[in-house]
């Protein structure tokens, strides 16, 4: 063991989960709209994650419209490519954060699967061979790659 490296997939914004936050703004005197910033960047993985938890989704050019448990919301992407959830007026911050937390957990699993797929696909191209793959108790996955030596 000589070097330890922490990496963040491009599908995840370089912010800590603690930075994900809900904000609430008044749309009129009696109504507030809730928005939740996320760490999610990949639209395909986001769509898969939402479907996996039972969301219905509709893609347009600029947003993803979604619905879960009769609650409607949309995702829009900011200039950095990070998706932000916007909930219909009347949604509580708690309900919004709960849904985004569910989606985020499903998204993490999608990212994990995507990283594993890339390892299996690309390791041989970089002179490495998959030696073992272990699913751990905490649901993380550990793979060991052997570096082919000339």
């Amino acid at each position, binding site marked *: *063991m*000589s*070097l*330890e*490296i*922490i*990496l*963040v*997939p*491009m*599908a*995840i914004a*370089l912010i800590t*989960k603690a930075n994900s936050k809900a904000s609430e703004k008044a749309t009129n005197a009696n109504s507030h709209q809730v928005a939740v910033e996320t760490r999610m960047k990949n639209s395909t993985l986001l769509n898969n994650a939402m479907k996996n938890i039972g969301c219905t989704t509709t893609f347009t050019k600029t947003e993803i419209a979604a619905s879960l448990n009769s609650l409607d919301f949309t995702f829009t992407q900011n200039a950095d490519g990070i998706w932000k959830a916007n909930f219909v007026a009347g949604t509580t911050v708690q309900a919004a954060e709960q849904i985004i937390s569910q989606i985020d*957990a499903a*998204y*993490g*699993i*999608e*990212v*994990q699967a995507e*990283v*594993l797929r*890339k*390892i299996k696909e*690309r*390791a041989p191209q*970089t002179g*490495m061979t998959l*030696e073992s793959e272990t699913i*751990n108790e*905490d*649901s*993380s*996955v*550990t*793979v*060991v*790659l*052997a*570096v082919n*030596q000339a």
Partner: protein
Amino acid sequence: MSQKRIQINIDAEGNIKAETLGIHGAKCLDYVSILEDMLDAQSVESKFTADYAVSEAVLIADQGVGNES
């Protein structure tokens, strides 16, 4: 020659931790960019373990012996 390996752990949130095994000295650093490209990921932190210093010292010592002969 010991087998060179890379151990990669991906947690359920998508975070990645990699460790080089049996790869000595500064050659370890080559694997930062190799892993970034392979995983479509960005390294945010890396640190040498104590083993790195030992390995480096052995390499330097080996080179010293070679130069004297």
